[in-house]
Each structure stands twice: as C-alpha cells, then as structure tokens.
C-alpha cells in the first residue's frame, strides 16, 4: 500500500513538475513573443528614424570656437632686432605649421600647436632688401615678397607629408625659388602685391602708385615676358585688387568702382562697374574665379559674376547675384576656401563671419575682438580660420562645417548659381571640375516625381476604375473568375521588366508610330463601345450562348480592330492634319521637343504597373457594396448602368478614393520604370514629350557616386525620407478611409 501511495505521490509530483515546466515554457514564450513582436514593430519604425537621422546633420548648424591668439611677433631678426610685422600668412593642409613672410624677407614656420618657431628660410635673392608687401596665393602656395624698389621675389612653399605606419608624423617643408622679377622698371616701392602661377605662366601684379597697378606676365620656360601698367580712370585710388584664374585681374577703388581686366598679351578692360557707394576695402575671387566677392568700408558684402543676361547679347555683363548680411565695419579681409564656396570675412573691429557664397548663409559668426585684422584665411581643409592682425598676432579659430552648401533655401528655393542669368531651381550634384558649384535643388526632382505620377495616373485611373466597375457589376461570374488572376499576375510583374519593355521596345515604337499611338486612346474605347451596335446583329445561335455579362467576348475583338485601325489610319491622319510630320508640327506649332524616352512612355508603363493595384482595391469595394442596395435599385426600374452609376459608385467612392491614393503611392516611389523609360534629366517642364527625373530614380542614379557621410549622400537620404513620408502618409489616409468604409458597409 505504501508503495502504491508513493507511486501516486511520485506521479502527482512528476505531473506537477511537468505542469510547472509547461507553464514556465508558456510564460517564457509569452515574454519572448511579446518582446520579439514589439522589437520588430519598433525596428520597423526605426527605419524611418534612421533615414531621417542620416539626413539630419545637413541642418545641424556649423559651429566654431576661438582657439587662441598667437603672438608670433616674438621672432627676432638676425641682428637681434624685432623683425617687424608679418606681411603674408599661410598654412598647410594638416595645420601642423603656419608660416609668415617677415619684412626682412624670411619665411618663418611655426608649430600651430604651441606657436613655437620650427624653421625659417631666408629669401636669398633679395639679399637683405626690405620687403614692403607680400602675398600668398590661394592655390599652390605661391609666395611673393615685394621690395621698396619695385622688385618681387617669387617663391613656392611645398609641403610633403611623411607617414610612419600609416600615421602622419611630420611634414617636410621646402621653399622653392621661382625667380626674382622687376615688376616696376621705375623702382617705385610696391604697396601691395599678388602672384600666382597657371600652366607655367607666372603672373605678378603690384600696386606701385595710388592709381597704378603694374602687371608682369612671364613664362620662364619659353623666355616670354610682358609688362603692363593698369591705370584707373581719373586717378581714383585703388584700394584692393586680386588675381583670378584665366589671367583676370579685379581691382576696387575708393569710389566704390570695380575694374575687371583680362590680361592676355594686351590687357583689356572687361568691365568698369559701380558696386558700392563706399570705398571697396576687400576683394576676393571665389574658387574657380567665376564670382567676385566685394566688401566695402561700410561692411556691406556682395558677390558678382559675368553672365549673358539675354541670349542675343554679344557681351557678358557683370551682375550682382548675391547680397550678404553686412558687418557694420569696413571689411578688411576675405578668405576663400579652396574646396567649396565658403568664405570668411573679417571686419575692422575683429569680427568674423563664415559664409557660403551660393546659399548666402552666414554659417558661423565670431564677435568683435578689437584687434584689427589685415588678412583672414581658411585652411585648405576648411576646418579652421587664421587671422593676421595688424599688431602681428595670429588668431586661430576652429570651425566644423560639414555641409556648407545646404540650407532650406538651397534645397527648395530659387538659387542664383554662377553663370545663370537669374535664380533658378537646378539639380546638378556633380561636375567635371573641382571648382564645380553643386546645385542641390530638390524642386526639379519633386516636380519630376509629380509629373511622372500625374501622367501615369491620368492613364491608369480611368482604365482601372472602369475595368473594376465592369468586372464587379456587369461581367459574368465566369469572366470575373478568370480576370482576377490575370490582373494579379499583372501586379506581380517585376517593375524592371516593365521598365525594360518600356525603354527598349515601347519607346522606339511610340516614337515611330506616335500618331497611331495617340489615336489608339480614342479608337480603342470607341471600337469597344461600338460593340453595342454589333451585339444586336450577332447571329442568333451565337447570341444565345453569350448571356449578358459576356460582352467581353465581343469587346476584345472589337478593341483589337480599334488598335489595328489606329495603326492603319495613323499615317493618313498625320498626313492630313500635321503635314505628315507630327513631331515636326509639335516642334514648330507648340515649341515642344520630342524626346524618345518621354512622359508618354512613362505614363503608359507606370500606368501599367499601377492599374492592377487600383483595379484590385476598387473591385473589392465595388463588390462589397451590399447587394440589397443594387437589388432595390434594379427593382425600382433603374437600368444596370444607372444602378452602377447612381448606387454602386457613390457607395463605394471612399474605396475608390483610397484605391487611387494607394496607386498614387506606388507611382510616386516607382524606380526601375522611370529609370529606364525617361532620360533622367531634371527639367521643370510639363510637356508630355520630354522626360523627367524623379526622386526615386535620382537616388538610384546618384547614390553609387555619393561618398558615405558626404553632403550628397545625406541629401539623397533626405530625398528617401521625403519619399517615405509621402507614401506612408498617403497610404495611411487611404487605409483609414477604407476601414471606415468597411464599417459603413457593416451598418448598411
């Protein structure tokens, strides 16, 4: 007995343990599934956050901080005397050293870290003559040292990085002698100098009198040399001048005029324009020398470039494209970045503003320090600003400005780009040259997206809704059963296939048979509708077999006849109405150019892709209209069409609306079809005969070339986010409407 009781107890215990285990498993499963489910749902929303998170740094403001002021004046001359104030300032790409040109002709290198002196190079060719002016070119580190007797020593600073185990350890600096030139044969002292080299041509400009700039152009390899004197009109004083690419020289005067010369073999004055009522105090060319940035004594800043304002104008004119927020005090220095279109402006009170040329944005501002800046420069990597003050000190500021060219206005507003006659919406992310001005307007892309979607919907919506109406209301059940899988297969066709057929087959056919294709839009429905005439005249035996709802058996052959007729009659039509050349007529009468890959093709192809979606949802909502409504209507004597139009359509209209919305969402994001069926040119033009570039195609085209983390990369993520928002929003509305409709049907 005892053993039996024990067995029972054991069994009960075992069962209890098993139940416990099962319950434990159940609890664990509950937790796992709940956690897993929540995790998946959360990670799905994470997609959205991540995409916008990648785009967010675009809008993060740039920031900067003053690092300190270095009293580099501590350098003494060979004779133990103070060497005087520096005349020019430069730095290397890695900001390891900065160098100054001193009045005794020495180039002294300092460690940027602590301001201690590292090395120095004497300008041997000057042999101790006093240097009165100096300059350093933006590109190439060409340094000029000009003397009180009209001579200029030309040098180039070269920096070679030295790596150890892939880490930069030091720079080797070298100062190369580029020659000593006599820019002014009359030996007047040089007040200001500029020097640059381009394709082995040396160009030196030196102000030797109030109203005279002496220019020397020489090519030591070929032994060519030419001197010119540039003078202002009426003796007005030059207050600033700068050399640009392609042998141009811009000079500003005390009366607020700007002279623009082209220094070929013979100097030619291209422009003389009044740019300000105040004296011009600072001038700088933008990278690529297209734009000229002008600062005046009142602190106003503007940018100018040369452009043909009208197509038939023979000469370019110098126009003001940008105005910038002023600084209140005279602008004393403008430093241009060598990698993009940011520049820094220094005012007489020591205040600094980092700006972007194209977007007119003031990126970072630093308050006045009281020091009087003479020169401001942006380091080659645009990560710091160096300011040479009048007292010989150098102030250094660190800036982080990863996406200077982006602002809301640059993305969505009209922007005045270099070489354009007026502000425009342009998308052009990359160019052939380094000094290319990126054009990041999303407007043409959004426009292209809407345009493509519009034409696709124009084609798809009527067809899909009418087909759905026919299938659900008029077609015989046996036809309906066959039609639905066909449409489902149509929905499953990969868009790359549709795009391929559209781009390689349809586009060329449409181009060859444009008029017949356009005629088809009228002939096919007309022929199908004309079936109503045939219906009554069908042979009796056949008609007996075709019950109402079998119209399709007549319509399809009739439609084929319609298509055939369009193809046959098209050329005749073209000959009669458009002189045999419709494309020529479109060009001459409407001023439209016909592209082979155009919106018509996209509309047809994308419409094809969208039709099944709209069809399926519309058919669903038509079919689920309660049958007692239609029965009542028919019983009251309304015809099938009247019932469909007055009862079914209004009742199902929210469903139709959501079907259209979902179709819209699909068309907006469609990539492969647009990529292949359009030329992908971002144009702002509604014409059905040319292409477009959509947001989605733009992402596919550009992202392989966009470096990770760069501006273009982030803008493309922004475009992706915009697409996501658009479709998600549209779909959600459609879904909500559909759910409400379902409830309404329940109530009926």
């Amino acid at each position, binding site marked *: 007995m005892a053993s039996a009781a024990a067995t029972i107890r054991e069994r009960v215990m075992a069962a209890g343990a098993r139940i416990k285990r099962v319950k434990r498993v159940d609890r664990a*499963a509950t937790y796992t599934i709940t956690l897993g489910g929540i995790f998946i749902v959360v990670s799905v929303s994470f997609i959205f956050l991540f995409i916008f998170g990648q785009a967010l740094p675009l809008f993060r403001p740039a920031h900067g901080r003053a690092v300190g002021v270095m009293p580099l004046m501590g350098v003494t001359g060979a004779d133990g005397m103070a060497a005087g104030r520096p005349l020019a300032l430069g730095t290397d790409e890695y900001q390891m050293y900065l160098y100054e040109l001193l009045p005794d002709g020495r180039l002294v290198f300092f460690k940027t870290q602590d301001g201690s002196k590292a090395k120095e190079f004497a300008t041997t060719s000057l042999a101790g003559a006093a240097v009165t002016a100096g300059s350093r070119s933006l590109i190439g580190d060409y340094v000029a040292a000009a003397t009180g007797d009209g001579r200029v020593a030309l040098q180039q600073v070269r920096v070679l990085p030295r790596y150890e185990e892939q880490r930069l350890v030091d720079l080797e600096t070298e100062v190369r002698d580029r020659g000593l030139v006599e820019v002014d044969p009359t030996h007047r002292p040089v007040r200001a100098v500029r020097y640059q080299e381009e394709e082995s041509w040396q160009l030196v400009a030196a102000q030797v009198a109030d109203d005279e700039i002496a220019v020397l152009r020489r090519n030591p390899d070929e032994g060519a040399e030419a001197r010119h004197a540039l003078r202002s009109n009426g003796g007005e004083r030059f207050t600033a001048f700068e050399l640009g690419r392609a042998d141009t020289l811009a000079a500003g005067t005390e009366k607020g005029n700007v002279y623009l010369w082209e220094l070929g073999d013979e100097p030619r004055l291209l422009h003389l324009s009044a740019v300000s009522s105040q004296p011009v105090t600072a001038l700088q060319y933008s990278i690529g020398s297209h734009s000229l940035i002008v600062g005046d004594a009142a602190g106003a800043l503007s940018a100018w470039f040369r452009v043909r304002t009208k197509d038939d104008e023979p000469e370019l004119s110098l126009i003001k494209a940008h105005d910038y927020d002023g600084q209140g005090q005279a602008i004393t220095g403008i430093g241009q970045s060598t990698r993009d279109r940011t520049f820094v402006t220094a005012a007489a009170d020591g205040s600094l503003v980092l700006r972007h040329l194209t977007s007119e944005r003031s990126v970072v501002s630093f308050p006045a320090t009281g020091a009087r800046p003479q020169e401001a420069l942006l380091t080659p990597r645009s990560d710091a600003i160096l300011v040479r003050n009048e007292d010989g000190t150098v102030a250094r500021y660190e800036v982080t400005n990863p996406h200077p060219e982006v602002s809301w206005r640059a993305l969505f507003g009209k922007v005045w780009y270099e070489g354009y006659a007026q502000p425009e919406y342009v998308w052009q992310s990359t160019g052939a040259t380094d000094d290319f001005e990126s054009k990041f307007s999303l407007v043409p892309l959004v426009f292209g997206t809407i345009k493509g979607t519009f034409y696709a919907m124009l084609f798809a919506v009527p067809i899909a809704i009418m087909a759905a109406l026919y299938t659900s209301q008029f077609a015989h059940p046996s036809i309906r059963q066959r039609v639905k899988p066909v449409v489902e297969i149509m929905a499953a066709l990969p868009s790359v296939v549709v795009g391929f057929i559209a781009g*390689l087959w349809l586009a060329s056919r449409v181009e060859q048979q444009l008029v017949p294709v356009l005629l088809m839009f009228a002939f096919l429905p007309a022929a199908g509708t004309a079936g109503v*005439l045939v219906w*009554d005249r069908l042979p009796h035996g056949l008609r007996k077999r075709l019950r109402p709802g079998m119209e399709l058996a007549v319509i399809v052959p009739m439609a084929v006849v319609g298509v055939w007729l369009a193809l046959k009659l098209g050329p005749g039509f*073209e000959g009669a109405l458009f002189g045999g050349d419709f494309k020529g007529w479109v060009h001459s009468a409407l001023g439209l150019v016909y592209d082979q890959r155009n919106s018509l093709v996209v509309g047809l192809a994308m419409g094809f892709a969208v039709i099944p979606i709209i069809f399926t949802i519309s058919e669903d909502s038509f079919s689920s209209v309660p049958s007692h409504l239609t029965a009542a209507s028919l019983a009251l004597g309304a015809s099938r069409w009247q019932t469909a139009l007055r009862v079914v359509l209004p009742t199902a209209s929210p469903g139709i609306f959501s079907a259209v919305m979902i179709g819209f969402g699909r068309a907006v994001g469609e990539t492969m079809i647009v990529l292949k069926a359009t030329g992908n040119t971002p144009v702002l033009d509604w014409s059905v005969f040319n292409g477009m570039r959509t947001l989605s195609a733009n992402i596919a085209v550009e992202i392989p070339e966009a470096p990770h983390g760069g501006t273009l990369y982030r803008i493309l993520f922004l475009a992706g986010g915009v697409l996501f928002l658009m479709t998600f929003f549209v779909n959600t509305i459609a879904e909500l409407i559909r759910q409400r409709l379902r409830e309404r049907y329940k109530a009926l």
Partner: protein
Amino acid sequence: MSLRKAIQRGDHLIWLTGSALAACILMIVGLIVVILVNGLGFFWPAPLVKLTLKDGGVFLGELVTREPIPNPGQPDHLKRHRLQLKVGNRDLLGYDFKWIDEADVVAREQPAGVFTVERREYGPLLGTPVLLKQGDRELAQGPEAIRSALPALLDRAARDRAAIEHIEKEEIGDINYRIERARLDLRKIEFRARREPGRDLSAERAEVERQVAAAQKQYEAKQAELARLMEQAATTFVTFKAADGTDKELRTLDVYRAYPANELGWFQRAGIYAGRLWTFVAEDPRESNTEGGIFPAIFGTVMMVIIMSIMVVPLGVLAALYLREYAKQGPLVRIVRIAVNNLAGVPSIVFGVFGLGFFVYFVGGGIDRVFFPESLPTPTYGTGGILWASLTLALLTVPVVIVASEEALAAVPRSMREASLAMGATKFQTILRVVLPAAAPGILTGLILAMARGAGEVAPLMLTGVVKLAPELPLDGFFPFFHLDRKFMHLGFHIYDVGFQSPNVEAAKPMVYTTTIFLLMIVVALNFTAIVVRNRLRRKYQTSAF
C-alpha cells in the same frame, strides 16, 4: 430592342467600361507576347541570307526585321521598307547589325556551305570554312571536308577549355585564395605585435611566410602547366571566308559552336536550340554579359531569395503572433497594424537607402572594424553583399508576411483554440500545436508572395550589393563555403544592366528578353503557387467549419 433604348439605358457606357477591361487584357497579353516572341526566337539557328546590293556590296547574315522607312512629310513616308541584317563579324566590319534598304537589293539567296560560328570574342562569325590546319600542316580544305572534320575538333576544344578553366578557376583560384589568406594572417600578426609589444611572434610569422612561399611555388607550377596545356590546345586553326572575301583564322580552341546554318534539318535545328538554351542556363556570361549564359544571375537570385526567406519567416510570424495572439487589442495595435500594412506600400528604393546606410555602412562597417581590421581599408562587410541585400529585401517583404500570417491566424476557427485550451493545453501549446499548423498554409502563401516580390525587386539591390559581373559565386568550395560578404548577380539587375548599360545593346537585346522570360517564370510560378495554395486553404476552411 432598339439601339436608342439601349443608349437610353446606358448600355453603351457598360461597353465603354468593358473596353477598359479589354485594354488591360490586351496590354498584359501584348507584353507577354512581346517578351516571348523576342526571347524565345533567340536560340533558334536562323538560316543565313546573302544579299547582293546595287553597289556591289555583299552581305551575309540573319534577317532580323523588316520595317517601313519613316520619312515624315514625304510621299514615300512609310511606303518603302528596309531590312535589318545581323551580319556578325564585328572584328572585320566594326558593327553587328546592318540596315539595308530593300530597294538596293538586287539578289537574295540562301547560300550553301556557310557557317555560323560562336566564338570567344567579337560575337558570331559568319562565313564559309576554307582551310583547317594543325600547326603548318593542312588537315582539310573546302567546306565539305571541313564540315566532317570540324565536330571532332570542336569536341576536343570543349574538353581543352574545360581543363584550362579547371586549372584557372579551381586550382589556381585555390592557391590564390590561400595566398590571400596568408597575407591577411601576416597583417593580423602585425596587428597583434603592435598590441602586445613584448611577445615574440617571429615563429608564427615565419610559418605564414613559409606557407606563402610554398603556395607561390605551387602557383608557378600550375602556371607552367596551364601554359603547356594552352600550347597543346591551341594548335589547330580553322579559316573562314566572310561574305566580303576576307579571311579570318580562328583557333579551334576559341570556337564554341559552329553549324552550317542553311543545311540543317528541323531536328538538328531543335538540337542546336536546346544546346544553346542549355549554355544560356548553365554557363557564365562572356563578353561583358552580352554572350554566354546567365547561370550566376540565376544562382544569385535564388540564393538571395532563400536567405531572405530564412530571415523573413521567423520575423514575420513572430510579429504576427504578437499582434494577433498576445497584444492587447486596442487602438494602439490597430495603429501598428495600419503602419505595418502601409510599410508594404513604401517605395522599395527607400528600403534600399536604409539598407545602404544601416546594414552596409553602419553594421557592416562596424563588423569590419571589430573583426576584420587586417583587411582595412578594403571593406569586407562594409560594402554591398548578398547578406545585406537579402536583409534589405527581408525588411521590404516582412509586411507581406506579417499581414498574411495575421490573416491566417485570424482565420483559424475559435472553436479549435477553445477545444485545445479546454483540454488543459497552455496558450503556447495551443499556438504551437493547433493554431500554427492550421495557419501554416496561409503563412506559406505570405512567404511565397514575399519571395515573388523579393525575386523581382531590383532598386534596393542596386544599392546593397548587386553587381553586373561577380567573378565568384557566394557559395563555393572554400571555407566557410557561404560567402555572405560577396557581391552577387541578379536576373533583374542583369536585365537592367545588359539592356541599358551594355556597350552593344542591339546585340544583347534578345538575350535580355530571354533573361526576362526566366525572371518572369520564377516570379509567375511563385505567384501562381501562392494563388493555388490560397484557394486550397479557402476550401479547407470552408469544409472545416462546423
């Protein structure tokens, strides 16, 4: 019944709506017909036509199309016709296709003895064989003799090619792989040496260096063997005379297939058709994808879809189980459901962007920094690859699986659950043993639909790892066999790339149509299976309702 009455009742408008449906049907039928007509004819060995023109020019080729010549505004607009001839011989002529005005043709014949030759480079060669020789020794002369001697030589060439390819790809590939591994090992040792400066790693270094040296030696031996084999194989030459009289000498090693195009019976033609189709399915592409086969693309597509399915099923089912069985039904879950539903409508390119930013750069970049620092800056996982592409597609298709699974779970009759629970089963046991098996066909439908969608998507793949030509498959004989970091080829991208980026679109077009047929077959078959499974499922529930 009079027409007026019919119009009064609006019957003609019914016919108008019917026309819309007819237009849909015509479009889909038209599309499929276009693809089939263009794609299926590609492998058919068409007869060669010789055209003599007014100006004395002679062209031999396959007739591709005949179309009216547009000349807008002129009376002969679309009245005259031109012929497109595929003339081949790109190395001799500089083009593959030639448009010829029908009015210029004075003689048209199908000459006997002309061959279509498929060769390694420059597309097909069309011409009459004139000379066959081994080294300097003549083997055969004249079309008849060559025709009987050629097949044996081509068989040998095929065997030689296979042997050469084996050495190049398998054996030398293996050695290269080992050298590359050893190189990475060396860098790893250097990394360790930097981390642990005190340790003596010279023994390990020497070992790896010894391996490299050994592999290098093997490599040289194999190279020598390869050179010898090449020399032996490349001794027979066959010369063809093109239509314009130029001679072209080919190594038989470079000839893949040659047939007398105008002297074939139907049966032989069918045999060549089947052979070419097989080549297309089973071989690697050649000549920047315009010739050869699409095997890597088929393989890549299938493998990607399989990896995607492995990812997407647990994720989708788990989320559906949570939403349907565990979550408290309320407005929040309703919102989540709508959101998930709508995710299916988000453009695929957006998922591609996400995959690039998150999987490739963020996750992949992180993996590289932690696990593969020795190969940096060359990325291992920090660049597109089949794993990232599959994951991106899994995300893209997970809403489909969630929605389908939820519907399937909801369709399981309440009575079945209640019976299970009443017998004392826990919730999890009920789900595992009763609900999930009953819902399995529905979930399967969702999975198949997801696979169909995944197989046809291209846009997200373009950002996450698909390439036009992947030298290595993501699955091979080298450890660890699955190379999920590798880039891969895909049928859809192949269509896009060859059809639009190819240097010789006209010649590649038929191949693209054929590729399209394969992609469509995969997608339509998957969809069709889904429809069948769903219909079965419906019937099953109809009978099981009690």
